[in-house]
């Protein structure tokens, strides 16, 4: 499904990613873990086509995304939730849900979003700048679910969220997985990561240093935590 290989990325002269390769099959949830500044966000941006100073190949199914800009990638089935949630202050909650064109028939429609997140329904006509942190995250995730994206790129979706919301996001990811969607998840919370994901890529200073299954992460927890700088 997703196949990233030999990815190098730069900020000016400084190299942020070095020969990063990531694979994820349909219906697979994989995480990208690593300490602050390891290059996780940069990797997601490269996959989304938002970082132009890069080399390497990004494929989705049979399609080579290399020559495509972010608009075409989104339409090809990529859904991106940035680390800052990407909420617009000048759009209402409902406008966030109708802005992105549908990339594919999706199991989610606006009604299902409101049923899953009643707080969003209550605020549908308000400007999204009024939302709490948790509501923003819900809105950002709802947006890509509505697009019907086949590949979800989520940058630290649980950061700063109350446990109840974290559980709700876990449930959504399990549903997405059951529908055959692929998830590339940047995550620092080991318990959440092992609860929802199948495999984990450990990134250190721009390089993948290990690929671990859930059991390995649990067995080597202290070592992994040290890698994450926690």
């Amino acid at each position, binding site marked *: 499904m997703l196949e990233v290989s030999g990815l190098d990325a730069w900020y000016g002269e400084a190299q942020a990613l070095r020969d990063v390769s990531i694979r994820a099959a349909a219906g697979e949830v994989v995480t990208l873990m690593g300490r602050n500044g390891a290059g996780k966000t940069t990797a997601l941006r490269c996959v*989304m*086509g*938002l970082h132009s100073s890069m080399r390497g190949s990004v494929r989705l199914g049979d399609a080579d995304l290399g020559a495509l*800009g*972010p*608009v075409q*990638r*989104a*339409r090809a089935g*990529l859904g*991106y939730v*940035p680390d800052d949630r*990407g909420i*617009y*202050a*000048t*759009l209402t909650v409902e*406008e966030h849900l*109708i*802005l*992105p*064109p549908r*990339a594919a028939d999706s199991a989610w429609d606006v009604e299902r979003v409101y049923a899953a997140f009643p707080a969003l329904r209550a605020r549908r006509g308000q400007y999204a700048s009024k939302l709490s942190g948790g509501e923003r995250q819900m809105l950002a995730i709802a*947006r890509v679910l509505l*697009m019907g994206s086949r590949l979800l790129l989520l940058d630290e979706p649980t950061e700063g969220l109350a446990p109840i919301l974290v559980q709700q996001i876990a449930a959504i990811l399990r549903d997405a997985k059951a529908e055959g969607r692929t998830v590339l998840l940047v995550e620092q919370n080991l318990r959440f990561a092992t609860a929802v994901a199948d495999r984990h890529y450990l990134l250190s200073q721009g390089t993948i240093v290990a690929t671990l299954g859930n059991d390995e992460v649990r067995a080597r927890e202290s070592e992994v935590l040290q890698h994450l700088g926690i």
Partner: protein
Amino acid sequence: MDYLAVQLFNGLANGSFYALLSLGLAVIFGMMRIVNFAHGAFYMLGAFIAYFLLQQAGVGFWPALVIAPLVIAVAGMFLERVFLRRLAGLDPLYGFLFTFGLTLVIQDGMRLRFGVQGQPYSAPAELSGTVLLGAVSYPTYRLFVVAFCLVASIAVWFVIERTRLGMAVRAATERADLTRALGVDVDRWITPMFGFGLGLAALAGVLAAPMRNVSPLMGSELIILTFAVVVIGGMGSIAGAIVAGFLVGVLSSVGAIFDPAVEGIVVFALMAVLLLVRPSGLFGSIETR
């Protein structure tokens, strides 16, 4: 008292032009992050098109009010496609330099041909004369300009704030890259929105022709104050451009009661104070990055 009332209306009339011009600047800045220095030159061209239409073809004010903005909008789209597109993503300084250079080319080109002396252009017969407002009589045409610009400004506000197209424009204004990543083809809208912004400038130019002489320098006098309006309203803010436009018009006209020199001082003092207490302007939310 009467004099104050007259100055108040004059302020609204002047503010009408600020509002239309800064609206165009706001839309262009929002979509392209370009501060269009050439805006005043296109305002001037709008007035000259109306003048030519009358002189060469006997086409009057009302058709000119439609034709001039359309011509300038098409010219603007061409300009965006051929030149400005190449500057996208570069340091904003390049866009500024380009539009500044363009201003000089247009302005001096017109000056070579017409000199600096203004050409008169008369208001349409239906709008000549004065209306009695309470105790003061006031030129009908100026009242028309105020009403027309108010309606036009509100129409633009409505399109941006309340329609699907406007929604995409707001999203692109706030975060172009993210909006692309959501599958919205921002770049398809840049050319028409640039044309639209210039069209508004030309519209203001046609409206100004009967009030001010049509001259190659008419835009350069206005544009500096218009930039102050944009800063006061908040870069890229639609409501801010409208409110600040009329506000600056009224404040500077009322200031001029005390001394004509006060006119400019009031505006820039307001801008300076606002920058200190509220750097993003009255309605601003954009952080330029």
